């Protein structure tokens, strides 16, 4: 039951982009086309889940026993930077076309606050519907994966909207980013309907 609540909460109720405001830069940056949006969501999904696994273990078996949890920020960001580098090397070999399409945004996953945000959330946030309040390793992984699915969902919906937006004639001052952000606002308004479903 907790797993189900974690998934619903992470994808819809506390959607990472539309309710928690994490990972907005790449969200606005690569959502011009549906295909790049999908690629980016997959890359983020992979990195978030992997990073959460590694940072959870590091926190549990290295930082907590030695009483150095104040080094959390530094340790986590280093792990994430190394992981992204690795994903980049693998992707370059396995799928050069996807690597090309993601371009500058792949190395930028390092500075995508969604990744660090989820890693820190898992360690610090209290979940009312989980016994004890804190997530264990399995729940943390499910949470990370579901959160990145929510990221993908928001990204794909928004890319669809944006492809239509590009065909419309909007006033000059609204062109580009402003109209995109206003559309996200309306999308967020729709997602607000889910609030309260899971406490």
């Amino acid at each position, binding site marked *: 039951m907790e797993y189900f609540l974690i998934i619903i909460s992470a994808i819809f109720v506390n959607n990472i982009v539309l309710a928690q405001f994490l990972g907005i830069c790449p969200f606005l940056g690569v959502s011009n086309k549906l295909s790049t949006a999908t690629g980016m969501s997959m890359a983020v999904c992979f990195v978030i889940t992997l990073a959460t696994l590694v940072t959870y273990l590091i926190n549990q078996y290295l930082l907590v026993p030695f009483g150095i949890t104040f080094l959390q920020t530094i340790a986590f960001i280093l792990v994430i930077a190394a992981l992204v580098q690795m994903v980049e090397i693998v992707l370059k070999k396995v799928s050069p076309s996807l690597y090309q399409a993601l371009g500058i945004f792949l190395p930028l996953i390092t500075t995508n*606050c969604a990744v660090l945000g989820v890693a820190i959330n898992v360690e610090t946030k209290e979940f009312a519907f989980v016994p004890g309040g804190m997530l264990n390793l399995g729940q943390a992984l499910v949470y990370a994966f579901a959160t990145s699915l929510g990221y993908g969902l928001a990204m794909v919906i928004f890319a669809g909207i944006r492809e239509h937006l590009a065909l419309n004639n909007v006033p000059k*001052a609204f062109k580009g980013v402003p109209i995109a952000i206003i559309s996200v606002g309306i999308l967020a308004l729709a997602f607000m309907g889910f609030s309260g479903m899971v406490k």
Partner: protein
Amino acid sequence: MSNKFKLITDGLVKNNPTFVLLLGMCPTLATTTSAINGLSMGLATLFVLVLSNMAISAIAPVVPDKVHIPVYIVVIATFVTLLQFLMQAYTPAMYETLGLFIPLIVVNCIVLGRAEAFANKHGVLESACDGLGVGLGFTCSLTVLGLVREILGSGSAFGFNFIGGNDGMLAFVMAPGAFLCLGYLMVLFNKYLKKN
């Protein structure tokens, strides 16, 4: 002197991080539920930005090119950890309110962006001025956005309630209002302040 002064004023309008460069969107949207929160987040970022700019411009000549990004990130993370300690000690309530977004200054693209675009090519003093300018620009944007959302959402300004009671439009304090206000503020900025 005028050169350094220009560096500071450039950050306010011409290189405004929020409205022109579109950097650091996450804290901009998340922490501006009221003018005070926006102001605090801006000042916290300003603190890290000035110190990391100075440190990076000092060490840039001796850092090998291949590892410069990880080195910069560690420098920034160090100052963020310092800031976390300071805020926990002196402003614990604000530290609680801003929560996750204090450690997330590490991945704020403004900080790394200024390190890459400015600090590693300029002297310590110029970098400090640049950090101050961009930080002030960020602080102003956040305060304005926070103020607009606070007025619409809870009918108060800087915590001073002027409608009596709690009849604000709740959506503006929540997520959708952040996007809508930022979008319309950008439109106004494009129309009246940006020079093409």
